[in-house]
């Protein structure tokens, strides 16, 4: 389990619709800011890469010292972004795929379902 991990789902019009800290380390307020900032900035990188390749899993698109941003892009151009410290990539790929299959979603809206939240955390524990 990664000690630091922040998971954000960004819709196709660049609006974050879900975010969660799924790391096992205790949450620090300032770190949350940093994570938000890093992921936001990483969107620039993603938008370049997403059009360049047809693959869904973009692996690590950005490095920020020892934090890595991995991104999974869906067909509807929704981005799953995970900020984590260096870890195995397979686990992350499976994590993304499981999340992708979760049906509790209305396009364009924020995800507020607690059920989804629980599921995400469970999957994080499982794969990361």
């Amino acid at each position, binding site marked *: 389990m990664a000690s630091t991990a922040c998971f954000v789902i960004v819709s196709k019009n660049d*609006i974050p619709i879900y975010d969660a800290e799924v790391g096992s380390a205790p949450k620090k307020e300032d770190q949350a800011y940093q994570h938000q900032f890093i992921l936001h900035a990483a969107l*620039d990188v993603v938008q370049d890469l997403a059009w360049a390749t047809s693959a869904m899993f973009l692996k690590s698109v950005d490095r920020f010292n020892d934090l890595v941003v991995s991104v999974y892009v869906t067909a509807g151009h929704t981005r799953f972004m995970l900020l984590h410290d260096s870890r195995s990539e397979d686990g992350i790929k499976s994590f993304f795929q499981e999340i992708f299959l979760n049906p509790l979603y209305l396009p364009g809206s924020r995800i507020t379902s607690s059920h989804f939240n629980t599921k995400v955390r469970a999957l994080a524990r499982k794969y990361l």
Partner: protein
Amino acid sequence: FMRLAYLIGYGVEIEKSPVNSASLSMLSWPKPATWPSIPPDSSAEVMAKEKTILQAKAREKLFDIQRKPLPLEPSSLLREANRRRAFLSVGNLSELYDSVDGSGLGAHSKLSPNKSSSNLMTRTMSGPATSETSLPVDRPMRLSEIHVAAEHALKQTISDPDFMTSLSSPEEFESRYMELTKGAADNYHRSWWKRHGVVLDGEIAAIFFKHGNYDLAAKSYEKVCALYSAEGWEELLADVLPDLAECQKILKDEAGYLASCVKLLSLESSLFSSKERQAFQSEVVRLAHSEMRHPVPLDVSSLITFAGNPAPPLELCDGDPGTLSVAVWSGFPDDITLESLSLRLSAFSSADEGLKAIRSTDARVLVPGRNIITFDIPPQKPGSYVLGALTGQIGKLSFRSHGFSQDGPVDTDEFMSFEKPTRPVLKVRKPRALVDITPAVSSALLMNELQWIGLIVKPIDYSLKGGILHIDAGAELKIEESQMIEIESYRSDGEHSSPIDASKVLSRPTDTGRVEKVPIENGKIKLPDWASDVTTLVWFPVRAINDTVPKGTSPASPQKHSIVDGMRMIALKLEFGAFHNQIFERTIAVHFTNPFHVSTRVVDKCNDGTLLLQVILHSEVKATLHVKDVSLDLQAGFEHLGKGDGRPTSSLFPLVIAPSSKAGILFVIRLSGTKDLDELEQADSMLHIKYGISGDRATGAHSPVPVKPDDSEELLFKISLKLKRPVLDPCLAVGFLPFSTDCLRVGQLVNMKWRVERLKDLEEASLSDDEILYQVDANPQNWMVAGRKSGHISFSEAQGSRIEIAVTCVPLVSGYVHPPQLGLPDVGDANISCNPAGPHLVCVLPPTLSTSYCIPA
């Protein structure tokens, strides 16, 4: 570059923003493994650095927003630097750190170290710390010393003079930093990594701000805020927006400042403490009540949202007012007082703005959360309306909101999607019939008598409360205002309760049998409240006036009256409606008629000149007529026989005539002698009928309304009849006497006989001579007349005298032939009565077989 600058001590110049924090806090301290020590004679520098550290204070943020400053260090520099001091072992590190931390990092808070730490220091340190030229090897470095040591070490390692210049002073550092940041930002923008670019713009803004260049700072901050706002990263926005607000406040950009405050209030409430949110609100309120230079309407669409009632839309009839209740949510942390609040509705189908705003009542307070506001809607045009914008005023500031939301818990929150609601909230119906007034009775009423006219007043899904009915009678119709109007409830299946039948009223205690008497004034009736929603029957008494005397008919003067004579018009107007602006107008036609139509004929005429006159009374009404007495005033030229009182022959009264049927009365009269032809032409007979009527006002004609208590139920009807003297005035009768033989044969002589009789004395008759010329007309082809065809006869002048005329004829052809006719050429046809009349055709048999008579073909 920034890391190195930090080491030197320029960290105070570096803005503790997320970008700097993210970069620096994860960037580990550079080598060496052993921290350089401070050079000798550096106490002045150390002092200077101390001063800088002491003077550094956190930039106070607007609204007193307290946030834990973001770190720029991956780990404490003080610890790290001291850790790399080789001589210090791990064991005594921790206790040293505790004490040193107290004095080092907390230097600017001016706390005096506690006794134990000072004791510790005296134990481990050889003397006071400040004025040493060389550091004892076992004392940890203070922060200022660390900075000085790093600076010196760098001076020795950096070879590039430009680079060294930029690290030589805070100002140099800042200008180089600015240059690099600008360059990086430009490059990012050019490569379309706009987020990276905009973030660096924010850093540049911070530097502008520090130097008081608020205008440029505001511009850059705006870019950053716009990006975060558009993409919905609220946490990041919450960090930068207060800075923008501060710039706007300093620049006195009231509109921008207000917009920023509103934006701050509309962010997620977990991002700010309630005290901070209250501070935002009080700023808005303060500005709203102050004198603003250029007041601009404020858009609060994300802060004040509204939604219509989840129930079906309010339905109003055309021209009616109503009240609409709307739920308004306030996102303000505290109650806020609004000077006014108005709602704009727009018509559903058309694209125009719709109506002018509907104001609710004045000054009100919106509590945080859900408020229900009612708006009074004035009468509107027909159509379907949806919610438009909400506008209002806080103090002197006007605001508007286009934020629609669903009533109830919001499941989805589409960030900044203000779709137009499609559900109509008000429907004003097209003008439609709200009431119907029809006459209750279609058959005719009695003319010249006071009759009830009934009107069925039926509301169609609308309350007639407060309605006033105006009745305007047309020409020759008068409403009897001294009488009360009766209003009763009406049942549409045809039955209705009769007001007279008290037993029925008692058996139905509910108001189905309800009757009320109301007065009528100047043709106006006020409808009682109970009649607002039910169909009622309104009875009011009228008298139709017809002064002309009706005329009877006879075979000589046939009927030629038209139905229009009996028709009267009544104009009705009902004023009603919640706003008293609904008007219903109708003109109804009511038929009136005389109770009888009279026709006469002469049934029989006797030889003595008496005439049997039959007077036929036709009932014109749907009621039973009771004829009590009839008398006939004869015109000149006629007189009654019998009792002479003008009454009919037999006593058959009271005579009951069923509705629409007829009865006959017989009079015996005769012609009376008068030679005045003019008088004869002008005169009319008058028939007086005393009668009564029993009818139901709901069916048709009925017994007149008693105005005075002693009004009798006996009614009088007068009708004039014109009797004409008979045209025929026979004074001679010519009669044919039967043949002597039964069969007539061709060639056989036959005697034809006529008898002429005087019916009147010669003086009475209009003949002057007592000698009468006679003539026999026969077709010479068919008959041969033997004897005189014409001649004079004279006979006695007395009535009843007779004379016979005989003529012998021979039929010439067989078959049915016209017989010869006797005529009196000098006497007018009117004066001859053929009695008995002669045969029209006679049958002539062919001759007996004989060859002696041959008639040429």
